[in-house]
């Protein structure tokens, strides 16, 4: 008997014809760089080396993913401060807790799925309950790989938002990452950071030249009178690109970037959303369950601020495999789809 949900695997597929082009799944981490922005190589690794040069307490750990989290830059620069823990996420985060107990500030890297799903109890009890300054930095957040649900951390924000003491950062670009590293190193508590790695675009300063990452602060990176998009992670880039397209159609879109998902900068969100007369849309690289959208909705409703409200995010489903561009179009995260969804709501 075949489960109904699996019946499609028995449908034969045809090879693409001479006229057809079909996108292929790229290597594990597809690049987000092809967006017409300048890029920076391995911003996390370089920022960590710079921070560690100033702060002797910083050490790095990984669970066999230094190259895929840009931690190899740190490992090469400071080999005696780097711990390769092997493919063993539970002991990696536990050992990070032990190092923090002895006065160090550990940065531990893996993929977001493994930190949030496999190592959760260890992060909860050994790190968060003790409020230890362990920084968990994870590649492949949300939908940033076409490898399917085993590698797509579509619910990591929901998981970690429920954890007391945990600060959560979802950076948009290379400058956000460069600003995030020293900020979370200085923060006296645990943090979970989503990571973009490899060649990472520089987005925010193009739209707002004086933009600077501030832990716990939202930042209005584009003004607009018709729509307010409240976005986090690379969805801020998609919102900004959509705003440019919508401007050509006479729709004026503001974008509020919220890199710190917890604690949420509700003051700034309420101030912007409370201005009135604008459609408010949240945008996140995460399931619509338990992420930025629901957090913003709760903040608005609790404060009695009730604009017309819509959410852009991933569906409550295990997602398909494929080329990232295909998947972002399919699930509404591409700039075109962000623009068309907003237009449909006006």
């Amino acid at each position, binding site marked *: 008997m075949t489960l109904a949900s699996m019946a499609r695997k028995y449908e034969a597929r045809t090879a693409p014809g001479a006229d057809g082009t079909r996108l292929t799944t790229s290597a594990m981490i597809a690049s987000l760089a092809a967006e017409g922005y300048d890029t920076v190589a391995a911003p996390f690794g370089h920022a960590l080396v710079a921070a560690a040069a100033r702060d002797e307490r910083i050490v790095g750990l990984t669970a066999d993913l230094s190259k895929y989290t840009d931690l190899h830059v740190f490992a090469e620069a400071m080999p005696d401060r780097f*711990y390769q823990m092997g493919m*063993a996420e539970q002991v990696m985060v*536990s050992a990070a807790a*032990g190092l923090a107990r002895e006065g160090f500030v550990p940065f531990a890297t893996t993929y977001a799925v493994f930190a949030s799903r496999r190592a959760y109890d260890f992060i909860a009890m050994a790190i968060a309950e003790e409020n230890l300054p362990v920084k968990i930095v994870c590649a492949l957040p949300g939908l940033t790989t076409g490898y399917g649900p085993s590698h797509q951390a579509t619910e990591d924000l929901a998981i970690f938002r429920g954890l007391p003491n945990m600060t959560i950062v979802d950076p948009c670009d290379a400058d956000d990452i460069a600003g995030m590293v020293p900020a979370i190193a200085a923060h006296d508590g645990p943090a979970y950071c989503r990571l973009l790695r490899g060649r990472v675009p520089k987005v925010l300063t193009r739209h707002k030249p004086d933009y600077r990452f501030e832990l716990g602060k939202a930042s209005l990176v584009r003004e607009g009178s018709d729509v307010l998009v409240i976005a986090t992670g690379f969805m801020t880039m998609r919102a900004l690109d959509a705003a440019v397209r919508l401007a050509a159609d006479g729709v004026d879109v503001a974008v509020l970037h919220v890199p710190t998902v917890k604690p949420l900068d509700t003051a700034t969100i309420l101030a912007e959303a409370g201005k009135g007369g604008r459609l408010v849309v949240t945008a996140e690289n995460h399931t619509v369950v338990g992420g930025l959208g629901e957090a913003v909705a709760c903040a608005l409703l609790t404060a009695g601020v009730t604009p017309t409200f819509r959410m852009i995010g991933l569906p409550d489903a295990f997602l398909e495999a494929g080329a990232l561009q295909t998947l972002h179009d399919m699930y509404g995260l591409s700039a075109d789809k962000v623009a068309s969804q907003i237009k449909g709501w006006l």
Partner: protein
Amino acid sequence: MGVGNRPAARSNVSLEQRAWNIRRKALLMGEVQGQGYIGQALGVADVLAAAYFHALAFRADDPEWEGRDRFLLSVGHYAIALYAVLMEAGILPEDELPTYGMDDSRMPMSGMASYTPGMEITGGSLGQGLGIAVGMALGLKRKRSPAFVYNLMSDGELGEGSTWEAAMAAAHHRLDNLVCLVDFNNQQADGHSTEMLSAEPLEAKWEAFGWHCQRVDGNDLAGVVAAFDAARALPAAKPRVIVFDTRMCKGVPFLEGREITHFVRVEADEWAKALAVLEEGRPQ
């Protein structure tokens, strides 16, 4: 580490007396609550006596003294036993004993770092202590500290995969400052540990994971002391484990003889009886 920070080394109280005192305090706490993991506490008392009054360096008036040996209670359920030894060591005030398990007590039913001086970690989610011990041992080496890390775990925790991740990591990083103590009372929530998920052959398993392993009778104080000495003195650059075979409820024969379970049921009128029986066995 000099004798100066080993309180037992300059004490004339025998380890037998210390172990007896630990059992008595545990029974007094059990009486307060009418419950507790008293079977485990009575069973592990000899190991704790040897740990705190023979092996460990610590300062009773400064539980976070940087030079101390770290003692991690991975099995947070054993808190009643650790409170008993922390009181015996002077780290916790004995006059707080009647607050055990009460609201606003510094001695909650399960051990937590934020409640209790001398409690290094929050245990209880079993299989976490050894991994934290790995990180602390790495950290102590970074600081060039001669201190040891001891991790007390139960035999049930041998079923957790994370224990074996940590075991591999400790051997890989050659953590000769790490001593794992396994209380093997062959009892977990649903029955005998060896019948739930057997970890045998246990010594061969630890050795295959790159550890120096000793297995001794955990209720024979001379043997327990010798095992601690051997673990500390071993020159090999590898972590060390001591598996202690212990008897639940040791020291109170009418409880020892009872059908042993993970959570030993003691009737309200039996605590006083248990204390009286223990009194008969007070060391001379």
